[in-house]
């Protein structure tokens, strides 16, 4: 008994008090900022392993970016990665960061379905499906529920059965061999339900984009409610994205 109390004393309070304002330690490659500096555009575009960098104007698509940071090393005056971990949004256009701007990534309130805040703002149960994920986003989604990030305090939890879920969180580039299980799982979730794509691989295929072993047909059939960029996603990116999604009331904005 005494030992247990000692352990609890040393354990202390671990949860991050405010997930929206927490500062990350050291360096973190979050939202990139692109300056207007003139550089060799062709070299920059060619450098990117996943074709995330576009030209005229120069831009980075966070849905394709693997956050390797090589562009910032090659062109340090052009591109810097800030520690801003709020990267999630619900529109593909808003995932694109263009040169000369330094704006936070926000959700487009007009795209949020009204039933989301109505039903899910106080409680959201999610079913996770890894479809070719490399276990990095999966580990970070697990971390969302640990004692540090403690997502459960917001009523957001992962559940074992799709029958108990209000939505699906997909990780990985959607392998062909997971196409059927993913569809079955989605169909088993009762309406209304949401779809969240977690990680660069899920949003665009990432480095696997174009692989013949993928089948991304599932994504063409449904509206995606939230894109969470990252390789892997940071737990704070996920938690803030989901909170913004369920707490934004489209009628009040």
């Amino acid at each position, binding site marked *: 008994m005494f030992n247990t109390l000692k352990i609890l004393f040393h354990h202390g309070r671990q949860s991050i008090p405010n997930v929206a304002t927490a500062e990350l330690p050291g*360096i973190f490659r979050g939202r990139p900022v692109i300056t207007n500096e003139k550089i060799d555009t062709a070299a920059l575009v060619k450098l990117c392993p996943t074709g995330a960098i576009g030209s005229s104007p120069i831009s980075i698509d966070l849905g394709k970016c693997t956050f*390797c940071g090589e562009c910032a090393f090659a062109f340090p005056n052009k591109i810097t990665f800030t520690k801003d971990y709020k990267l999630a949004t619900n529109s593909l256009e808003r995932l694109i960061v263009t040169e000369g701007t330094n704006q936070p990534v926000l959700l487009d309130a007009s795209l949020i379905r009204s039933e989301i805040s109505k039903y899910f703002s106080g409680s959201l149960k999610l079913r996770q499906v*890894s479809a*070719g994920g490399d276990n990095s986003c999966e580990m970070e989604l697990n971390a969302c529920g640990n004692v540090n990030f403690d997502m459960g305090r917001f009523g957001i939890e992962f559940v074992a059965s799709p029958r108990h879920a209000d939505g699906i969180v997909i990780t990985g580039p959607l392998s062909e061999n997971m196409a059927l299980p993913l569809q079955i799982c989605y169909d088993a979730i009762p309406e209304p339900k949401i779809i969240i794509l977690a990680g660069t691989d899920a949003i665009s295929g990432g480095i696997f984009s174009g*692989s013949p*072993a993928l089948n991304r047909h599932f994504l063409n059939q449904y509206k995606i409610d939230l894109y969470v960029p990252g390789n892997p996603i940071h737990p704070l990116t996920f938690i803030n994205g989901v909170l913004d999604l369920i707490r934004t009331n489209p009628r009040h904005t």
Partner: protein
Amino acid sequence: MNHIAVKNNERLSLTSIPRSDYERFLEHNTALLDDSANHCVTYFGVPEDGKIKLICGIANDNEHNIYLSCAEINRTEILPSFSKHHLAFQVFERELHENFGINFSDHPWLKPVRFAFDRADKDSCIEYYPFYQSDSVELHEVGVGPIHAGIIEPGHFRFICNGEQILHLEIQLGFQHRGIERLFLEKKTLLQRTTLAESIAGDTVAGHTTAFVNLWEALCGFQADDELRFTRTLALELERIAVHTGDLSAICTDIGYQLGNAVFGRLRTPIINFFQQWCGNRLAKGLIRAGNNHFPFDKELGIALKNMLDQYKPDFNEICQKTFRQPSVLSRLEKTGVVSWEQAGSIGAVGMAARASGSERDIRKTHPHDKYINLGHQPVIKHHGDVYSRVQVRKAEIIQSIGYIRDLLMHLPAESREKKELGSPAANSIVISLTEGWRGEICHCAITDQQGALRHYKIKDPSIHNWVALALAVRNNEISDFPVCNKSFNLSYSGHDL
């Protein structure tokens, strides 16, 4: 001589591998495995002039060598199998069968491996996997997956049970197949290939990326300097501490021990946060690069890491003492999920799972690379092969790794002032790269063509061998003990499915 001996990460001309006819090739390699100091690290086929060239690599733990040999066969031939003599070859031959349609006359279990997109039999499909079945009215089957209750990767487990008791488990994988080996050839830039290596298994970023960059540098004839070798070794040991700690937490979850789950879980956080502090990514993606280092390890980082470990270790020891003295914890771990030394040897088990069954196998000792060459590593060995042995190996390896990191921090490498050019890969070459990831032995093998372009890339995650160990471990256990058995191995789905 029927083989040529190479060292880990040594470049070799492809034509210098001795070629024999298939019968002698079989006889030679299966005879090598009669010696328990030898094990198969890779065995694969490469299409060549309409035929298939089979290349087999057997590692010798005492001489620190890898014995390479090859044979050429036609796709249509029906061959006697290696697996008939040694089960350790079974998965390699199943892969040859799946990829090229090569048939074996006496393979005991010629089933699909991962339903690769470029498989020979396009009519086969993952929905119709040929499960082992029982007709007995006394027994029942339990199917679990591919999607599991927790947030983990997909795979299907089919149990045949007598009441609560598991008689047989068959593990069907392949759901995670992304075609990585083919992408290594199709993606042409080094950065793309490094990104691929980082994505083989996201829990083993340091392991797989180290294997790749060591291989690539060997192909290019590049000598890594002290700074690069320091970075890789430190990343490997940090990754080992992080995952082992996380797995101890998950094992506590699976036996319903909440305190252990919470405390081990939060102890993992500062380790992966240190990766972020160092390289901007909690799982070390972006850290390891061939011939280059973006993240010099300065004194300040060294002090931060030392302080973090100084805080970690007493708390870790405290929770270990509490957890592993609880009779209710030990009763769930001891004698659960036993893999005997004989079984581990016969299936070619590797890594910490093999070491928990009394095997000494550890690349850090037998085929050292980077800073391990001067480390004098002694593997942690346990002998019972049960869940508790695997827990004890993890616990002891965490303490050992902390010691290694403290040693490494005593001599921080000087930042390399002159950047050497990496160069380009040599033509007609082969390199085998072995790395001891936290799970066990990772093997990458590359072959270049006449222009020095990649012609073949072969990846072997330790899980390839060890999934069979899990299937054997759960036999005669209660089905309710499956989760804790599974977590004690924590094998990779994506590393297996590629």
